């Protein structure tokens, strides 16, 4: 087999894996948009906040330590204990549920039936607040996140492909874990949305707030639930990306990777987020591999948007989005 084709196959597989990581971020956007029509600008910051909280709990860090020390003249930074990863994830989930309740109670319940642009602007405010709040709560230093996920080259794939192609493929163990987690997450979310009472209520709210209210569905409960689930998805994304680069404030920028995925997959489809992520991941990696050297490299960021725009021209609602026809 030609060498370039073998290399392209490796790039293709890595593109799929990268796409899964993009899809993990996009899923959070989809969940909230699907249930409330809100494009949540704060989703990237939620991933950052969740990861910061997780590391803080694991390391036994005292929240708001700098503030407390500055006000009281104390010197406390750590509780002196370490919390196991699984337990810390559960505690972090509780924090994200609390955050969802606060966000809904203080912001979005007062904005029911407002224009989408008003809701969008509220999430911009939320994003900046949450970023500053996370800074004050946990500090701005880069934190190593280790919940026991494997990282580095998968030796089995390396050896197997070497025996077949005389060239061992590089696949990161972390990406494999992310793929499995994403698959489980999507299955769980689809089952939840289709087959549970709360899931059906969520879809009803997504279709029409007023109609859902008239049949006794609690809008507040549904929104808190959806923001909690989005918080959980943000936590998963934060763990995967934070394990790669450490938990730091640029983690919030991973939202940029989700936008072309949403444009391509549609804002309302959970499978769309996954398929969109895979197409963007593979597309940008193969384009960089094939044309990057001719174009000076670094094509991935812009090519992802070009790819999304091409799909938009033919399917404005995205691959799996709902086509909305408004009759006058």
């Amino acid at each position, binding site marked *: 087999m030609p060498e370039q084709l073998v290399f392209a196959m490796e790039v293709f597989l890595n593109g799929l894996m990268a796409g899964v990581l993009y899809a993990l971020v996009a899923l959070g956007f989809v969940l909230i948009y699907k249930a409330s029509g809100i494009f949540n600008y704060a989703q990237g910051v939620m991933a950052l906040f969740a990861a910061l909280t997780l590391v803080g709990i694991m390391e036994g860090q005292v929240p708001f330590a700098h503030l407390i020390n500055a006000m009281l003249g104390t010197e406390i930074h750590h509780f002196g204990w370490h919390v196991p990863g699984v337990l810390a994830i559960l505690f972090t989930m509780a924090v994200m549920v609390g955050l969802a309740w606060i966000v809904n109670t203080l912001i979005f319940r007062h904005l029911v039936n407002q224009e989408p642009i008003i809701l969008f602007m509220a999430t911009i405010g939320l994003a900046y607040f949450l970023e500053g709040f996370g*800074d004050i709560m946990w500090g701005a230093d880069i934190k190593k996140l280790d919940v026991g996920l494997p990282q580095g080259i998968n030796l089995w794939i390396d050896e197997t492909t070497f025996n077949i192609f005389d060239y061992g493929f590089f696949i990161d163990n972390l990406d494999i874990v992310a793929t499995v987690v994403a698959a489980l997450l999507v299955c769980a979310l689809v089952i939840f949305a289709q087959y549970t009472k709360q899931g059906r209520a969520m879809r009803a709210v997504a279709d029409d707030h007023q109609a859902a209210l008239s049949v006794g569905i609690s809008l507040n409960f549904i929104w808190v639930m959806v923001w909690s689930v989005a918080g959980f998805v943000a936590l998963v994304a934060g763990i995967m990306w934070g394990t*790669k*680069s*450490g938990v730091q*404030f640029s983690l919030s*920028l991973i939202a940029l990777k989700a936008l072309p995925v949403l444009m391509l997959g549609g804002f309302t489809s959970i499978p769309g987020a996954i398929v969109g992520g895979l197409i963007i991941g593979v597309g940008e990696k193969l384009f960089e591999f094939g044309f990057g050297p001719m174009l*000076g490299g670094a094509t*991935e960021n812009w090519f992802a948007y070009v790819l999304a725009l091409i799909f938009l021209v033919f399917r404005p609602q995205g691959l799996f989005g709902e086509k909305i026809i408004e009759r006058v």
Partner: protein
Amino acid sequence: MKKTLITAAVAAMVATGPALADLTIVDTSYRTGPYAANGIPFSDGYQDYFTLLNERDGGIGGEKINIVECETGYNTEKGVECYEATKGEGALVYQPLSTGITYQLIPKATADGIPLHTMGYGRTSAKNGAVFKYVFNYPANYWDGASLAVSHILEQNGGDISGKKIALVYHNSAYGKEPIRTLEELSKKHGFELSLLPVDHPGQEQKSQWLQIRREKPDNVLMWGWGVMNQVAIQEAVNIRFPMENFIGIWWSGSENDVKAAGDKANGYKALTFHNLGSDYPVYADIQQYVVDAGKAAGAGDQVGTVLYNRGMYAAMLASEAIKTAQEIHGVSDITSQQMRDGMEALEMTEAKMEAIGLPNFGPEFKVSCENHGGNGFGAVSQWDAAAGEFKLITEYYQSDQDVIQPLVEEDSAAFASENGIEPGC
């Protein structure tokens, strides 16, 4: 009655207002945003050194130092706003701490007569003081960095790297592209093959670049990164099992923050530096006593001795030495920004001077002049020791290849002078 009240109010304001200081230093810091983890230690070091001089020595030459901090968030627009908002306070010098902000401030600061010190960043050809009268980039610049890295590889290979492959992984911005020209020249001179691998901002996803490195198997990888790009690159290098001792970062890719995420596997990673590391210097005892223990530290006091804290402190030390020089030249203690410029242009850093300050062998010796605002291009290589949890110097300070760099400085600064109608001269 009314007059009495007004007089009382004014008197109260004067009594409770900040003490007026004569030497104003603006710290354009970034303690928030994606790059805060790097901005905080630098700013802490920068401010703590001036605080030390105030608390221990009563300032410089009898004049207290007034530190004005302005948050830029590492954002160019905010950086320019900071400059505009604070220049009227009598700022003696600006350390913009961003290549983007530097490029915006060069014409403004030149027009306002306020010097910029862009230490190890900014526009490299600003080394030519005959063109850039108000810009100083001592003790080293990016082109020095590129040459120092290649010199180190040469030394590791017995002086012959012809036929070797060197890859540059760089932030796809003006900053990241700075070393390319020099590396191309060095590639011609030494016969190595150079491949360029740009990474788009912010650099969280670099799979394509590292797969390419894995396929092409370069002998050495150089990195011009910043922020999350550094951590991801080092992690990806670990993932593909690239030999860490053959991976060299510029000084902005060589702090504890950059290797933390990769953990022990980053052991052996190298980075350039133009100042020394650690806290085993007499001045740190004074910082602890007069600043940290006295509760006057700019931050939490937990960054003392880190690479970026040391860099901030080194920048402050060079600024304070330039102030002393300006005071000596002009015979006044309350100097202006124009006089500060003269002090910077006459600055000479010797080992004796650094030892007297309590920082022996902390930086290279250099002398600034009108023709040379960039120092002598000396730097050293540091290496991450994961077991000890610190970067350690593994070479002495050595000089970059001035035969290659000086013509490039002349060429680029001449082009700038021509574009901007500047008549070079000293």
